[in-house]
């Protein structure tokens, strides 16, 4: 009988020790955190998404207008665009011909010109390229896409990196713009006096 009691006593003592040991031990579970960095490409027009070009003098018709040529010329005459991109990108531009609200005929879109200025960290000749950096080298817009700003080395970044000003010209006959004056085209009856409109499309494209 004593032996049996001793055995039970021994058994309980071992169980208690085991229980105590388990309470003092450590357990670990893992939380798996997945950070998925998807590609983000965002084109932001900060200002100048509406442009008004007014021709109201002979000089305007003869020599064209811009933000600084003609009164009022083109108001505001420039558009500030910024790109937020996790990868490399390039920017295209195109527009249909001006169509009349009043007046007749269409104004060929190559009467509208644009040139670019880099005001962010990314500069032309280092991170990006642009073939139209002065008014004299302005791009005359086309109905089909033309690359306005292209990749040179690496142009991913935020709005402070990718900040550009697009300067607009109309009827100035510079660079690749229509070589005929607005007066000459009026005289040739390509379009008449009136009010015309078009929508310029800027397309930022990811480079895979």
């Amino acid at each position, binding site marked *: 009988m004593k032996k049996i009691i001793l055995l039970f006593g021994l058994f309980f003592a071992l169980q208690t020790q085991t229980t105590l040991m388990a309470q003092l031990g450590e357990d670990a579970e893992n939380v798996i955190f997945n950070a998925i960095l998807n590609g983000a490409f965002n084109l932001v027009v900060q200002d100048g998404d509406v442009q008004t070009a007014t021709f109201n003098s*002979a000089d305007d018709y003869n020599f064209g207008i811009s933000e600084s040529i003609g009164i009022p010329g083109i108001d505001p005459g420039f558009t500030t665009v910024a790109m937020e991109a996790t990868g490399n990108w390039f920017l295209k531009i195109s527009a249909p011909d001006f169509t009349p609200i009043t007046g007749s005929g269409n104004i060929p879109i190559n009467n509208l010109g644009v040139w670019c200025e880099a005001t962010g960290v990314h500069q032309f000749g280092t991170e990006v390229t642009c073939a139209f950096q002065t008014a004299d080298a302005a791009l005359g817009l086309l109905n089909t896409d033309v690359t306005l700003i292209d990749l040179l080395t690496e142009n991913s970044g935020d709005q402070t990196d990718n900040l550009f000003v697009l300067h*607009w010209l109309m009827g100035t006959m510079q660079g690749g713009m229509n070589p005929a004056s607005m*007066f000459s085209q009026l005289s040739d009856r390509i379009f008449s006096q009136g*009010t015309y409109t*078009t929508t310029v499309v800027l397309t930022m*494209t990811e480079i895979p």
Partner: protein
Amino acid sequence: MKTLSGIWYITLVLLQLLIFFKLSAQETPMLINTEARLDNILLLKMTPEKYVEFGIKKINENLYQITKQPDDVMFSVESTGSWNLSISSADAYFTGKNDSTHKVPVDFIGLYVENTGTNWDNGLFSNMANATKDTIVYLAPEKTSLLESGVRGNIGGSSQNSFILRWKFFYEDDALKIRKFTDFDINDDNYRVGYYITLSESTANGKIDQ
């Protein structure tokens, strides 16, 4: 076997979709609205001194010497619409500069317009009709039409619509004018008269005189 084939098919489609989305570049378009307002203009460009002046000296009863020829006048028209142009004198007589009692009728001098622009002035079926193309017209107090818009319209700037107004003494060509000329008692003097050139829009919307 059929189940296996189906699984392979679905896997293949998923793989193709994956490749497509991976390879196709993301495009972000943005629109800029541009409006061009082509306002109406009608502009006559010429020297502000709008008078014609000549000098004359009597040699004998039948012979006079012109001591000062009237100056030609270059002018141009810049217009977004078609236009007409006419001329009239400010007075019925030239008046002597040295003695204002000296008078000569304004039709003593004629004029014609020489076209130096690219708009044609060969008649109503061209850009414009030039009333003085083959003749000379009198200067008169009443408006005399010189240029009138043709079928093709005469819209344009200075390069299209550029002209020289040339003065001409009638007696130079017309023997009859010699007789008329001798009817006047013309005193030695420099004679002058003002004139108006009137530019009018010739659209159906009405005329706007400048």
